[in-house]
């Protein structure tokens, strides 16, 4: 009793707990064991990492079970699984971004950005591979097509989406029609993008004759995908505008439509703008609806109402699936990854812009 004050007494509360270093011991053992096992079947970093993770989780759980009991063991097993699932979720993200950067950067150049595929044939690609000269041809036509089709899709869907959201929030009284619109907007967010493409194709085929494929048909298809996103986000933003502001405006003898346009919408504008930007980001990368509505082009088309058109996603798709030169596919692959890089940069920029808008113009609410 007297001398035990010098010795560090183990607290009653930490009794039966594993010391902190135990986890590291198990981890080290798991890594070594995994190296040994994977060496037996032919060494490979991936197999080693997977085995080490499995051994660690099993080992640590068993050690915990032995020292601290099954309840603690189950708890720590769950902790490892939850952390592990996050790591696993990161792997494809990192791999995709790494792949696109690694394979896309070499093909990215001024010429790639500002020339089209007009006149670039299999023979041209074969020549550049054989002579070791730079790959010719670029994605200019596809970039232009992407911008045009997205612009028209935005022009169609934003007014419709905004007005529909205004109807739901400001005019809806919770009747059958309102509930139907809310419900079907939700359902519409789940329409497969290719079905939206088929719808636009079928619509224009009935009106303008079969085989009508133009950029605008693609814009209509994208609008079908964009409208529900715009409605949802706008609706959410309008609903958080305090009712007091509407009442203040009404009490000044201001009409409802002016109240909506000049008080409600301006208060929510940052959220609405960021929602619209996210909707654009969502459709800019769509491929399937473009395939069935806009056809494919290798030269620049500035008219969305006439003639076939390419976008970045369809450009990537066709460069991979049907390389320009079937014997030398490397130039096509390089172009595809460079285009993928541009596309990802576009989408990420839109996402960042959306966040910036949301933050910079966040409604200056009172207090």
């Amino acid at each position, binding site marked *: 009793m007297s001398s035990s004050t010098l010795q560090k007494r183990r607290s009653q509360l930490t009794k039966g707990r594993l010391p902190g270093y135990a986890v590291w011991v198990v981890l080290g053992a798991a890594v070594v064991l995994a190296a040994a096992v994977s060496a037996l079947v032919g060494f490979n970093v*991936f197999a080693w990492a997977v085995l080490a993770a499995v051994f660690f989780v099993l080992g640590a759980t068993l050690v915990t079970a032995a020292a601290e009991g099954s309840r603690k063991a189950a708890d720590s097993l769950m902790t490892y699984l939850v952390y592990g699932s996050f790591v696993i979720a990161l792997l494809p993200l990192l791999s995709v971004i790494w792949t696109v950067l690694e394979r896309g950067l070499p093909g990215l150049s001024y010429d790639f950005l500002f020339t089209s595929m007009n006149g670039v044939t299999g023979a041209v690609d074969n020549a550049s591979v054989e002579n070791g000269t730079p790959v010719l041809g670029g994605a200019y036509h596809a970039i232009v097509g992407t911008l045009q089709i997205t612009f028209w899709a935005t022009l169609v869907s934003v007014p419709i989406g905004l007005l529909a959201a205004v109807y739901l929030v400001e005019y809806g009284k919770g009747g059958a029609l309102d509930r139907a619109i809310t419900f079907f907007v939700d359902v519409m967010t789940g329409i*497969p993008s290719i079905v939206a493409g088929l719808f636009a194709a079928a619509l224009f085929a009935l009106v303008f004759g079969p085989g009508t494929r133009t950029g605008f048909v693609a814009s209509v298809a994208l609008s079908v995908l964009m409208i529900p996103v715009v409605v949802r986000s706008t609706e959410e933003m309008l609903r958080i505008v305090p009712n007091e502001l509407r009442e203040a405006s009404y009490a000044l003898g201001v009409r409802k439509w002016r109240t909506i346009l000049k008080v409600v919408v301006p208060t929510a504008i940052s959220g609405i703008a960021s929602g619209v930007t996210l909707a654009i980001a969502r459709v800019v990368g769509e491929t399937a609806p473009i395939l069935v509505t806009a056809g494919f082009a290798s030269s620049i088309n500035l008219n969305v109402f006439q003639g076939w058109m390419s976008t970045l996603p369809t450009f*990537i798709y066709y460069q991979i699936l049907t390389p320009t030169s079937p014997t030398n596919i490397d130039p096509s692959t390089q172009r595809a990854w460079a285009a993928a890089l541009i596309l990802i940069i576009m989408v990420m920029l839109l996402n960042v812009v959306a966040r910036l808008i949301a933050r910079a113009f966040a409604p200056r609410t009172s207090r």
Partner: protein
Amino acid sequence: MSTTTLTRSDPAGRSGDRVFSAAALGAGVLILAVLFGVALFLILQALPVAGADPAEITGGEGFAAYIFPIVVGTVIAAAIALLLATPLGIGVALFISHYAPRRLAMTFGYVVDLLAAIPSVVYGAWGYAVLAPRLATGYGWLAENLGWIPIFAGPASQTGKTILTAGIVLAVMVLPIITSLSREIFLQTPTLHEEAALAMGATRLEMIRMAVLPFARNGIISAAMLGLGRALGETMAVALVLSGGALTASLIQSGNQTIAAEIALNFPEAFGLRLSELIAAGLVLFVITLVVNIIARWIIGRHKEFSGAN
């Protein structure tokens, strides 16, 4: 009847109200019309298939025999995706809502949301160029050692472009959907319930099983359903990653096909009856996803009613 200051009013303002509310209502109705239009135009364009001679349909045995294998293929691919993504998505959602350090949780949430921002064609290209070749080795091993199980029957595909690879790519694509929805619901768990469980001496796992999961069950189911809807309709990942073919039980051989990929691969060159066939296939896909989404929304609706009481 005194005409006074009260009965004076500018007619322009009044009609402004009428025009604006009519426009808003019109936009709402237009959305309904578009959805019904989708169904209607697809039906109209698909009609020739109904009257066609079965021998003229691709495969020569009528539309049912044509559509059946690709419906099954679609379901297989989506099922693989869901089987992989649901547990993983719940794990990631729990990590962000209950395990990760609070200050980093938001950032981790953004990172996972980035998965949703990557365009599907890029996933397709990645699956085609990076994932499939890597998995081919693993498929060889599976065929050698587990080949007696029908789904792993050999010979394994040398390129790795199989329905299993497509399913894995789809899983990556639906993961952010499942994660973000479940995360939101986990975060809504009443703190009182969580604290009650912890105060009883429950471990974190026991607290999650007692308070979080029962509360979130409906939400998880509907998140998985929405993920399923996305996986069923996703086109590019499958079109690029799978080298399709006839229906086979083995997941590691080339073969099988999904509706969406079938349409994307064949539509650009299709005309006449083939076009109608593909549109009819699209209609089938539309109906399947519609049903899945309606069920998911219905479950979410019920969840709202229940959680409202808390």
